[in-house]
């Protein structure tokens, strides 16, 4: 339904490129006390700027927090970006922050927390695909049509009149072109128009904020030239769910120690000579974390899928895959030689009817029964933000006896009250799933991936997966980051603890009954399981900081999701998902959205995705809130979206609408009411 509100003019202040965020923040302060403290904060900041050496003499109001790292100061920041570098609500003397505000935001307000947990009293939150009004749909198709038409015209005339530019697309000296005209059409003519919005090079820690390298183009985006300038921007794009991407802090110290002790590589494959003690202990830790018997670690997240799936299924087996599964799963399935079938995204009835069909029909032509059927789904889908309907799948698994492989690349660490992924979120014993795969890139601020399962399964994969004998082992510093961040989520207990009590690996009965509540602390890690040299600070070791991170992430995700909905945007995905896709539809609006968000004060970097990651018609911006963001940061994003979305006419969602101030003021209510 086209909404009349959508065509309203945007905010009264049209000069969005020059707006002083600080001023607006000051005027919008709710109470006199906060106004005063903000003024005081501004004063201290100006004073500290006069003092050229910020690091040596931290000003009083920030004294409890640790000092900024040196490279923050080399970046010449003007006043406009100060709200990124310093907290707007200054910390009091009893609040101690151990993080750098630009990497991990300071937020002491305990009401800005939430617990991510599935409520079994309510039905599963099905993905609702909200359609845009009719004219948007039409405009999207027309603009795609014009884009391709112009592209073909440019190709037609270019090939005749500007041959040098097309040389690489035409046969020359007996070589066929590397890339045909048709194959590269999308890249050159559609994607090419927005290269300045893609593959943006950055520097520094991809934490709460990120420093982007400024670029410009003199040849219509064919090439991008770095100016040498840098801009600090609010980072709502990196997969930094729990905010462990930090240059300072306990995890970083652990990594430092590991570099000093173990170097940067183990010089070989896992099966030949690249296995070290650290690998073994990290794998044990991962197994304990996800609640499986054993786990293996691979040096690349993509390769975890693409090199281990072939070891699970082969000729005579069937892989059933969700239509929106990640490319790595598709490539793994293709390499395996197994038959592959696809079901509709997260649609359990489609899965069930497919299962009934394939099991009754057997293998094509021969009708022999399948050796095995492996269903591969993701825990949290990276472009949609949907959470898999796990309770239903596990129920189907009981009936249809398939094997279940869950890719938790995005959900591990980010979902569930204890950050253990979808099984934790739905409170389903991990042992009812055959293979749990995940990556360390996202929640743990590291790299690589893992596969967890029974000991037989993991040992089999160690020997028969491609990575074992052929791919380099994961590097020790990366392992140290994984161990430190994971142990801090689990919490470290000094006394060794019987292993079998923490996780029940008992076979699952025919009916799935969610565990009522977790009585014992879920999988604390005994100190002797960690490397002896790894000394985590108290807040990390007792798990309190990580608990705070998990709850902050849940709050931020839910707030951003609900806030954008209340502002009138079309949002996909689950309300607890740390992936919040905002639907833009019209391809022409994508680059404008990125540029306007980047020109906002403070600058915000966003990811926009379209074909091939999504369909052409459902182009979208994708936000990834993180535990590192403060409530004020999410406010900033909402304000920016409100303003930019108004100008670009993106607000087409149905349902009740709130004004931006109302959303910001009633954030807590909003989060708990959804």
């Amino acid at each position: 339904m086209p909404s009349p509100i959508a065509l309203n003019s945007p905010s009264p202040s049209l000069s969005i490129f020059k707006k002083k965020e600080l001023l607006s923040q000051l005027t919008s302060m709710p109470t006199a006390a906060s106004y005063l403290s903000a003024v005081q904060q501004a004063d201290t900041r100006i004073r500290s700027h006069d003092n050229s050496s910020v690091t040596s003499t931290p000003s009083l109001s920030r004294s409890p927090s640790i000092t900024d790292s040196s490279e923050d100061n080399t970046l010449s920041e003007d006043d406009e970006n100060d709200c990124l570098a310093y907290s707007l609500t200054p910390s009091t003397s009893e609040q101690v922050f151990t993080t750098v505000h630009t990497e991990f935001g300071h937020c002491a307000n305990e009401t800005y927390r939430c617990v991510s947990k599935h409520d079994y009293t309510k039905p599963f939150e099905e993905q609702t695909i909200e359609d845009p009004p009719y004219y948007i749909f039409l405009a999207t198709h027309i603009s795609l049509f014009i884009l391709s038409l112009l592209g073909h015209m440019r190709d037609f005339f270019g090939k005749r009149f500007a041959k040098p530019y097309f040389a690489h697309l035409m046969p020359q000296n007996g070589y066929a072109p590397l890339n045909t005209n048709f194959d590269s059409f999308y890249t050159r003519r559609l994607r090419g128009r927005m290269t300045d919005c893609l593959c943006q090079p950055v520097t520094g820690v991809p934490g709460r904020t990120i420093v982007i390298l400024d670029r410009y183009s003199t040849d219509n985006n064919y090439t991008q030239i770095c100016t040498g300038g840098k801009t600090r921007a609010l980072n709502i794009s990196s997969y930094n769910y729990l905010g462990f991407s930090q240059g300072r802090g306990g995890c970083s110290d652990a990594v430092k120690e590991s570099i000093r002790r173990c170097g940067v590589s183990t010089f070989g494959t896992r099966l030949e000579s690249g296995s070290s003690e650290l690998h073994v202990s990290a794998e044990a830790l991962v197994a304990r974390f996800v609640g499986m018997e054993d786990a293996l670690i691979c040096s690349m997240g993509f390769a975890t899928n693409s090199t281990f799936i072939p070891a699970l299924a082969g000729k005579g087996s069937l892989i059933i895959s969700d239509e929106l599964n990640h490319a790595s799963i598709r490539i793994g399935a293709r390499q395996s030689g197994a038959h592959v079938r696809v079901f509709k995204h997260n649609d359990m009835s489609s899965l069930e009817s497919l299962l009934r069909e394939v099991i009754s029909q057997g293998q094509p032509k021969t009708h022999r029964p399948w050796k095995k059927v492996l269903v591969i789904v993701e825990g949290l889908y990276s472009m949609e933000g949907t959470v898999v309907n796990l309770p239903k799948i596990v129920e189907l698994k009981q009936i249809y006896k398939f094997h279940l492989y869950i890719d938790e690349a995005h959900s591990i660490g980010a979902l569930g009250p204890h950050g253990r992924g979808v099984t934790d979120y739905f409170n389903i014993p991990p042992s009812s799933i055959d293979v749990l795969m995940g990556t360390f890139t996202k929640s743990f601020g590291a790299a690589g991936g893992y596969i967890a399962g029974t000991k037989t399964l993991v040992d089999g994969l160690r020997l028969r997966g491609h990575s074992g004998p052929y791919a380099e082992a994961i590097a020790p510093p990366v392992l140290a980051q994984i161990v430190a961040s994971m142990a801090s989520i689990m919490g470290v207990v000094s006394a060794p603890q019987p292993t079998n009590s923490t996780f029940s690996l008992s076979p699952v009965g025919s009916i799935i009954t969610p565990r009522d509540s977790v009585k014992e602390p879920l999988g604390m890690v005994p100190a002797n399981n960690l490397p002896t040299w790894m000394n985590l600070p108290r807040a990390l070791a007792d798990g309190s900081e990580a608990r705070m991170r998990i709850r902050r992430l849940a709050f931020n995700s839910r707030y951003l999701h609900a806030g954008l909905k209340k502002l009138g945007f079309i949002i996909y995905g689950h309300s607890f998902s740390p992936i919040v896709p905002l639907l833009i539809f019209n391809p022409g609006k994508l680059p404008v959205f990125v540029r306007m968000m980047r020109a906002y004060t403070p600058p915000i970097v966003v990811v926009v995705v379209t074909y091939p990651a999504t369909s052409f018609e459902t182009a979208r911006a994708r936000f990834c809130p993180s535990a590192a963001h403060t409530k004020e940061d999410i406010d900033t994003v909402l304000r920016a979206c409100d303003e930019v979305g108004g100008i670009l006419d993106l607000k087409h969602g149905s349902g009740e609408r709130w004004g931006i101030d109302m959303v910001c003021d009633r954030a807590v209510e909003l989060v708990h009411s959804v």
Partner: protein
Amino acid sequence: MDSSTSVALEPLLSFLAFSLSQIESGFYRIPGSAVVARYVKSSHQNDPGRTILELILVIFAIRTLLQSRTRTDRSGKHFIRFSEKEIDELVDEWVPEPLVQPLSEWEQKDLNSVPVIAGPNGPKPKLLATGKIVTNLASFNFAGLAGNEKVKERALETLQKYGLGSCGPPGFYGTIDVHLDLERDIAEFLGTEASILYSQGFSTISSVIPAFCKRGDIIVADRSVNFAIQKGILISRSTVRWFDHNDLKSLEDTLISVEKDRKKRKGPLTRRFIITEGIFERDGEMVDLPKLVELKLKYKYRLIMDESISFGTMGRTGRGLTELYNVPASQIDMLVGSVANGLCSAGGFCAGSAIVVDHQRINGTSFVFSASMPALLATSGSEAITLLRNNPSVLLNLQDNIRAIRAVLEKTEGITLLGHRASPIIHFCLRTQQQSLSVTQSTYDHEAEERILQDIVDDSVANGVLLTRAKHLRGQEMIESRPTIRIAASAALTRKEVEKAAGVVKASVTRILSKRR
């Protein structure tokens, strides 16, 4: 999967069909459309055939839209209709195999014998199982950069500034300036226009090949290429012709026959690629690069060469075979190397012209869909290049050590040394009647040979020298190769240490083989 053409055309078809119907219904909402509609109606009266044609078009469009990809099998002639009850019974009766077969006794032994290193790996690591310090002849520490203080220092600095993970794929704010720096360093080092960084060595070439080679293209590849290349070729779906291992005569014959075929079929000009390795991972043979480049130019093929072993080890400063043979690296269209092996860090790269590299930034699946490598591993790679540039003597040491190892082992009874004499990896297998590396007979007993080799490895580890068998996925490789033990030479050891270690290996070989006789 369905045929890829229909998959590729589907978005286009559905898009066209969709927009057609959209335009039509949108049209009626435009003021004045009624006039046009009236005109259509009258035209229908004049020529009903046209309306029928249009109607058929619309029906076809709707059918295309509604047709689900997953339903195509249902209409096939092999589809059997069952009642719901029959399906329930079939489901009940079906007994699937376990997901993974338990390990056999030999596999378990194989897994248990994998050495685990306590503390840092390097020329003299400590083994976790025994607590003994051993001399390392197994790890890829060719240039001896393990434990290098400068590399560590650089890594620590980077950590402070960048944190560890990149938290995103290159397209989504995961391209850090240090990645660009390393890419530029590699390109400058090799003398190519540009290079692109992948986050795992193994996944590099298996992603590079399908980025360029598509269905209908021709790949001419060495029969004995490594596993990653085999997987890349498989994914590419191109037409493959194989030539005999490291035999350029056979390559030329193949090239000629391909050309003949094309002329006979009068086929269009397709992309053609030669895929081979610089130094073969499986046996340490070295390719004759000048001859290869000559053939490639003569027959107008593009060359994809995997230098995973030779980059960082061969040539005066480790630029690889191009430096050794003095061939400009720009002659190799896609030069793939390993940062993990050659630069003692992690990841891999592909160097080539700017067009080749840019193409991969959008089409290299494991580049696009995977997180970029941690910043500190990238700077470690850059630091390694600086070290290689500044200390060419390191690689002279490496060559000395290679010669020393070969000298000792050549005189050993019962084994055959494989590969080129300058190769930093030295394979040896048991000397039997069969001398060819590839084994085709089904009667051949791999496992027995592997057991003997494993005994040699275990014995030499017990005597203080870390060795490893070259591990392969048996049954999954295109060609089963003879089981071998692979020694990796390192510049970090002195000549004396190397000779001593090789002596231990020799003694182990003699001991185990004499026990068996």
